[in-house]
């Protein structure tokens, strides 16, 4: 086995891929965004509950795609669950690649940065007509 940083499919990456953190939908959704990587078809959707003080009360993702895109989504969701949106804004693409851990070729950096891009957009994407009822919120998010 190559050195850890060279190994793309490291244990912790596969752990996030197989057993993702917060894959699904929040009980109440105020912000949501979805995007894809048209070259490869990876899709990531983020659904957030942001409170009046700018805190991410809940962060969930859903999607379909390669190990890199889906594991990266799980990692960024885990990192920012409960944090302030200001922290998200400050989080750079390079920091996302560092968080991911394994060295990626430029083509696969796009996979890793898809969830980062989606989260950066989601905090600016309020969902209209969010009711208090969870099922309503779910509908509004989709």
């Amino acid at each position, binding site marked *: 086995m190559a050195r850890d940083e060279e190994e793309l499919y490291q244990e912790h990456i*596969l752990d996030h891929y*197989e057993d993702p953190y917060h894959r699904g939908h929040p009980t109440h959704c105020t912000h949501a965004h979805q995007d894809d990587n048209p070259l*490869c*078809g990876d899709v990531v959707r983020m659904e957030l509950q942001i409170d009046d003080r700018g805190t991410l009360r809940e962060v969930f993702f859903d999607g379909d*795609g390669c*190990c*890199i895109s889906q594991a990266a989504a799980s990692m960024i969701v885990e990192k920012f669950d409960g944090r302030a949106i200001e922290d998200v804004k400050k989080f750079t693409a390079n920091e996302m690649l560092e968080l991911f851990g394994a060295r990626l070729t430029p083509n*696969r950096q796009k*996979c890793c940065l898809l969830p980062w891009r989606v989260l950066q957009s989601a905090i600016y994407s309020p969902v209209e007509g969010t009711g208090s009822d969870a099922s309503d919120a779910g509908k509004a998010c989709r």
Partner: protein
Amino acid sequence: MLTTVDTPPLDPLLHRPDFPILSREVRSGVPLVYLDNAASTQHPRQVIQSMVACYEEHYANVHRGIHQLAQESDDLYNAAREKVCRFINAPTVEQCIFTYGTTSGINVVARSWGDANIEPGDEILLTEMEHHSNLVPWQQLAERRGAVLRHIPLTDDGRLRMESLDSLLTPRTKLVALMSVSNVLGTINPVDEIVRRAHAVGALVLVDGAQSVPHQKTDVQAMDADFLVFSGHKMLGPSGVGVLYGKRELLDAMPPFLGGGSMIRRVMLDTFEPGELPSKFEAGTPPIVSAIGLGAAIDYLDRIGLEAVGQHERLLTERAHKVLGEVEGVHILGPEPQHKAGIVSFTLDRIHSHDVAEVLDRSGIAVRAGHHCAMPLHKRYGVSATARASFYLYNTLEEVDRLGPALEAAKRVFHRKRK
């Protein structure tokens, strides 16, 4: 006297030394297994050398040059066109127009013939398996001219539903545009029958030959296609050159698409008279050296014989189906080997095709992963992406066999024992 109709089998080991890149290692100790031929093929020394010789000894711009080099380049460029003409059995060389590739050939027809002939309500019949290059230009044409697009649906095993032609082909159908071989499914389409039925309702037919011309004998007169397009880079030639063949009366009647130098007879300040075929559709400096390289690629294929190439690819495809069939969790898209060319696309349970390709690359195996520029086709089969192994004359059965252990390795990476 004993005669045999069988083509002697092709021995890829005889040809591999002609391809310098095939002897490289992907990484130290990992030899290259190149199975990405449907995307682009590799180049034999003979093709590379033809282009080097042109640059080193003969190069100048073509058309109307008086000096010695211009004449030599002209001769080489024209000789390449003659080789293309013979290769597809076109009636005259003027009907073989050099383009920049299959995509540009389709766009010439859509813009030139399409804009001049398609009226609101006219129908253009495509198939659900088309490459984006044979979908988007017609979508753009339909948008410009108010035409209606129809699509021949597919069977679950990746073939055209021919019975649908009964209702899809009508007097409103002005053009049928289809690929002769699918770049994803490998399916060999019944082009002859479709041409016959299309002509019966008065429709023209454009054949996208990108995946068939390099692998099987093409005779445009027997096929009776109205247009045929293909690329150099999928048949041992360089990228940046392709061919548009058309029936004489159609090409003669079509207005030029790109305007500029070379495509004119004379130019006044406010108007021009278009030139003769093929110059009419070759505005600007053409891909001179690439066309010469394509000519050398045709020479190379002629020496081996496309029948032998096709026969060899069938062996590889059958072996690929067998090898992949033995890997649990693999699902092959498309029909059984007898209905397909050397293209095998597949999915592997619970592993995304990009990750499959990534792990195969560790064994030096180059396959393509993704939607292969056929998003509607992937949607039809309910998958977002596939991995695709595709073969050419230099691939060996041993290379195909290596897919098996490499896929098992991918499963070991992803299907770990849960902690």
